[in-house]
């Protein structure tokens, strides 16, 4: 994989995935709207939104520092970097290298989150501050579960017939819902600033910066969905077929996420702790099961 062709291969796949990322959000939204008896926007609306944002002017508070300008670039770069990194993991033959890459990916996202949280505080608006504090609060509970489940993945190899892997899948699904700001932890659709978590941090952004942040969040979502997909029948679908079945896995995950979003109310903010602690606990059990070889 260290050959030139390997690098080009990874970049090509990353490009395709990045291109498909808004479409995945489109699938989720379309599925939700269908279930709600609405026609809703088309599957490609997020592309139009991003194109529109890129052509718009920005409104920038007078009080902001360089962090505000740097954050969109950092967040976007981090997402792309994370995408490239997970493509270096070989599904089906996870090794300690794979584990190392996954941990690095989570740290890269941590960096992005750090900058976004600072940017939320930067303009001094009350919503940004609330958003930042909530985002850090939620992520501090979501991250441990993700780290532990990555360990389980490398031991169990994504074999869906293993107890440890099933538990890890359950745990990581909950954490991914939190990471991608979906109901029941966060609500992407809401207009109520006071209830927002992730969205509240980026309220100050507009135009090109917002486009970058939006695109980054679509890419982050597809990265997490890709990781999630590794827990599902990885050894059962080896080699070249894995990439053929990959889009189907992502689509299935999207539809399940949409279904969860539609059938639950958002949790009270502090209930998210219970939810994510549960996820962490399951992750621990999964890791014990994995070390017992189950």
């Amino acid at each position, binding site marked *: 994989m260290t050959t030139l062709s390997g690098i080009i291969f990874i970049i090509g796949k990353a490009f395709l995935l990045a291109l498909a990322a808004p479409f995945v959000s489109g699938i989720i939204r379309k599925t939700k709207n269908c279930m*709600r008896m609405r026609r809703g926007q088309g599957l490609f609306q997020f592309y139009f939104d991003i194109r529109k944002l890129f052509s718009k002017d920005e409104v920038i508070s007078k009080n902001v520092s360089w962090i505000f300008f740097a954050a969109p670039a950092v967040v976007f770069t981090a997402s792309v970097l994370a995408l490239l990194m997970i493509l270096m993991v070989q599904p089906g033959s996870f090794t300690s290298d794979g584990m190392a890459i996954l941990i690095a990916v989570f740290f890269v996202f941590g960096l992005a989150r750090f900058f976004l949280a600072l940017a939320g505080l930067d303009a001094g608006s009350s919503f940004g501050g*609330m958003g930042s504090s909530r985002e850090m609060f939620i992520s501090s509970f979501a991250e441990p579960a993700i780290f532990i489940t990555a360990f389980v993945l490398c031991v169990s190899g994504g074999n869906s017939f293993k107890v440890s892997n099933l538990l890890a899948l359950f745990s990581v699904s909950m954490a991914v819902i939190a990471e991608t700001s979906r*109901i029941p932890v966060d609500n992407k659709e809401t207009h*109520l*600033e*006071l*209830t927002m978590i992730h969205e509240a941090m980026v309220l100050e952004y507009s135009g090109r910066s917002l486009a970058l942040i939006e695109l980054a969040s679509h890419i982050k979502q597809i990265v997490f969905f890709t990781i999630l997909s590794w827990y599902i029948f990885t050894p059962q679908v080896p080699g070249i077929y894995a990439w053929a079945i990959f889009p189907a896995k992502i689509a299935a995950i999207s539809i399940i996420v949409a279904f969860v979003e539609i059938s639950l*109310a*958002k*949790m009270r903010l502090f209930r998210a702790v219970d939810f994510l602690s549960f996820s962490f606990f399951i992750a621990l059990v999964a890791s014990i099961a994995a070390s017992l070889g189950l």
Partner: protein
Amino acid sequence: MNNHEYIKNILDSEKIGAVNISAPYRDELYVTVTGADFGKVCSLLHKRLDSAVMTFFAEDMRARSGSFTVYCAFLSVQARSWIFVRQDVPGENPEFVSIAKDIYSAALFERETNEMFGITPLGNPDIRSLRLHDEVWPRGFYPLRKDFVPPAGKSADGAQYQFRRVEGEGIFEVPVGPVHAGIIGPGHFRFSAAGEPVINLEIRLGWTHRGIEKLLEGKDHAEAVNIVERISGDTAFGYSLAFCNSVEKMLGPEIPVRAQVLRVLYLELERLYNHANDMGGIALDVGFSFPAQFASLIKESILRLNENLSGSRYLKGINIVGGVEKDIDKAKSAVIDEALTKIEKDILALEDMLFSSISFMDRVDATGILRTQTARDLGITGVAARASGIGLDLRKAFPDIYGVFSFAAAKEHRGDVASRFKVRCFETKESISLIHQSLKKLDGCGPQLKIAVLPKEGTALGSAEAWRGPVLVWTRLGAGGKIERCKITDPSFRNWEGLSYAVLGNIIPDFPLCNKSFDLSYPGNDL
């Protein structure tokens, strides 16, 4: 024992003898007192009648008697009567001793009187303006005085509204509004929070103040109905009904039974669509979008039914003084029957969906509690009061035509979002039953829809239990039947303060949910 003796006995028990009591109508009683006795009589009635101040207002009578008149109204459920305490306040340097120290529910009204008439309530610690914001409105202009001349321009003295400040380690302020992300009215909310829990919430309103009460002066009742309907768009029928009740009481014609029954029908339809809307709104604010969408379908079907019946989705242009304009014939009656059957089925399904959802119930249960005593002190009315254990429903207190229908008033005790939600569910079902009953009653009524009225001078209070709570309209008609003074009291006026108490101790992200469970009117408050 009639009302007159009942009130006289109460006053005599405290040796307040020298008062003049008059009862122009069966359900209205005026106690005229001197300035010195005003506070004492009000406190006495407040305690003995167990009633908050229902409305409180002033009137510029300087052209007739050289003074202002200040009214404070209580409700005696036992005597089925509104009890007004009235005092004259001198025309020069008008002031009176505030009663808000003993009766907190008068506090906002006193602020309003101070602002609109320049009558100072002595001893009221809070006389900040409510609607004429200091930033733009110059001092010394009192719109509801008869000799009011509008100011030439905006105020330039740089006055600022003073918010209550909470200080301490880790306390920060979150200002929200008046411009919001949704399509709702403008209101400024100032939270003081320690982390997420709210320590204090101050609500500043008045951004949609249109000067309705001034606008109504000099209009005849036909013009006034049109204005009154537009005070708060979602309560168009409730408002026109309260106004018509007021003028009809004064002018005296017996309204045809058919019109009375139709008014019940329309009022309940208004309640129905708004409650359906709120049930959906509560679901939406906790991110539960499927039932929210379902509720909006139900609301839309009721609005279409409204349009089919009256030509107006929001039930405007139906009421006139003397009766109603839009009849419901056999064919329409069948349409309602059919539509209601479907609506009832849908509403039951919606309720079932929400009550059986653990994630939804977890959000609404024990959130935003308004305690009974707080609600009493603040003078909370309507849905919010009934959820907090105050069972006041004007449809029961003054039955009139409602006396021939069988229905129950809702009452819950916990005062949380779930209680307000349950009150709405209960009232929805009662409304459907009332509409069915009124359709049956219509068959037995004569065809007459309205009756001609002759203008006359006088005063009267009209009321209607609109969907949000009691709407009160006190009107004085002068020469030629033109309105001299019309005081509008919307349930939102004091319920907004109830909201600011209900959210205390809750976390900031739960505020929109609490807010939606009250669902108060911005324009009804701002007038």
